[in-house]
């Protein structure tokens, strides 16, 4: 489903060139639950951005379902992104003035989906926030905000959910709750979840762990039978 072939991503920072991704080759199949681990600056977030079509590789090939992403226009990538991917961020990235239900409706606004309210309500109920629909981000706890963000990521029925340190801003208890939701996505709905984290306990929920250092994959457990936590 996702194939990276010798992908590089260089940033120029002043005169220095930062090799955020340095020749990554990787395949992720449908329904996998992958954790990408590494220290900060190891390139794991960049890799997620490339996979999520938020960023374009400097060189190499990125095939999504056989389509070469590098050859798509900005708008085409945006369309693909909104249809196939859902994003969950460490800082939740909710819009400050919108109620929970409006946050969840937002992706559908850009896809001109009908009966948005109904679908948004269902998605919020799915993450256990049926009684918090009218609340604004400031009126919600961190865990609740992250669940709104998950509902927003799921509402357009994506095939892949990309989560960048989704528990990073949460305490371990609420973080665990969030991880349970991610697990259920994989187990019950067959959604591919790719998770960036540097916490071992979080990564332990995943079926496959990819470790990165200096823009390179240094360890890939491959698909394995889930360990008992």
């Amino acid at each position: 489903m996702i194939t990276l072939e010798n992908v590089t991503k260089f940033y120029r920072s002043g005169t220095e060139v930062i090799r955020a991704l340095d020749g990554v080759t990787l395949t992720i199949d449908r329904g996998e639950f992958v954790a990408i681990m590494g220290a900060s600056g190891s390139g794991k977030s960049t890799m997620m951005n490339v996979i999520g079509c938020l960023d374009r590789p400097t060189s190499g090939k990125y095939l999504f379902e056989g389509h070469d992403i590098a050859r798509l226009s900005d708008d085409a990538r945006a369309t693909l992104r909104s249809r196939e991917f859902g994003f969950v961020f460490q800082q939740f990235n909710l819009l400050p003035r919108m109620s929970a239900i409006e946050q969840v409706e937002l992706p559908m606004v850009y896809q001109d989906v009908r009966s948005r309210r109904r679908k948004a309500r269902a998605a919020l109920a799915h993450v256990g926030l049926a009684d918090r629909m009218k609340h604004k981000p400031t009126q919600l706890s961190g865990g609740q905000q992250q669940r709104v963000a998950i509902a927003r990521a799921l509402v357009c029925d994506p095939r892949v959910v990309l989560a960048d340190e989704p528990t990073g801003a949460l305490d371990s208890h609420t973080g665990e709750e969030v991880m349970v939701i991610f697990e259920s996505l994989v187990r019950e709905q067959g959604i591919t979840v790719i998770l960036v984290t540097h916490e071992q306990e979080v990564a332990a929920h995943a079926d496959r762990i990819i470790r990165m250092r200096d823009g390179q994959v240094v360890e890939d457990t491959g698909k394995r039978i889930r360990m008992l936590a």
Partner: protein
Amino acid sequence: MSVLDAFRVSCRAIAANGLRSVLTTLGMVIGVGSVIVLIAVGQGAQKGVQDQIRGLGQDLVFIKPSAPVRNGGPGAQTVARVGAASAQGLTKSDADAIATSGINGVAAVAPQISLELQAITADGNQEVTVIGTTPEYPAVRASAVADGDFITDADVTKKSLNLVLGSTIAKTLFPNGEAIGQRVRLSIGGRINLNFNVVGVMAPKGGSAGGTADEYVFVPVSTMQSRVGFVRSATGEVFVNQINVQTRPGADQAAVSAQISDLLLTRHRVSTPDFTIQTQNDLIGAAGQVSRTLSILLGSIAGISLVVGGIGVMNIMLVSVTERTREIGIRRAVGARGKDIILQFTTEALALCVGGGLLGIAIGVGLAIGIDGRTIASQTMTTVVQPWSVAVAFAVAAGIGAVSGSYPAYRASKLDPITALRNE
């Protein structure tokens, strides 16, 4: 993203920054409002002048001597030229010749001789403009008699000492009551000293171009000719200040003017005219030229404030895009395309400008109607709200909105989603 969604998002963003939105919009409100008010004032001035000219009468052609006119006597201003000048002036017989020439389209001819004279009554004296004319005058000049009679053919034949007062001068001379039947002495120094009977008072006519007709005193033209010596040339011809020709309705005034011109050139035995012929339409056109220039001037000033308002909107939109970088990043991450972002920010600028435009229309139209007929700095304001000025001001406001919104929107759409998301 549909336009409706973009509109909803814009309205919320505008409402979220209430004070800033109001201040931004103020530029458009003032711009649109002043365009409407100033054009209404300009058009009002134009209408006022045109109404005055139309008030002179209908289908008129005015013939005036173009040679310099010498003073007729002490206290007199413009009087018929006295024989000493080389060029010939207009005479009573010119008027008669036009009337009897058979020029097609001429309906009536009324010559007039005017003089500044002292009017003396029991109550005091007053300088007045005395017009010697014929019974056709009221019809030709769209005037009416309120009380008594105008000068009759018999008055002209008998060179009678009857006069008719304009409505204002009648009140000035006889503040305590009935003017008809009273006596008025007209004099210049000691040279003329005639006692007249008041036989009529004109109906009020209001202001009119070239003097207020309500201040005039009318006497028979023949009386003016025979009793007031110095309006005659050395050869005994009687000079007139103006010949009013009324053409038949629908007649070609240009053709009539040309034929009158030919006739007078022949009679005066000159090759270049020593007179000027103006039709009423010429006057309206000339006045229109002046007030059009005024309208353009006022409109341009207002237009400048509209442009300044537009710059304000663009400035705020640029600030807004910078401030909302993170919002743009989030929207991009959940699937907004570049064109969705453009639509959102352009709609927001448009909504600001259109909202400001509508408010400006309300205020502008209200103000224009409010000052209509009021006296400001001893000037009675006339305003005419032109639907086209409302439409143009609104369209320009919307256009400015689109233009001033599109560049910031373009900048917003070009933001890299990743960078935008990292922005705190």
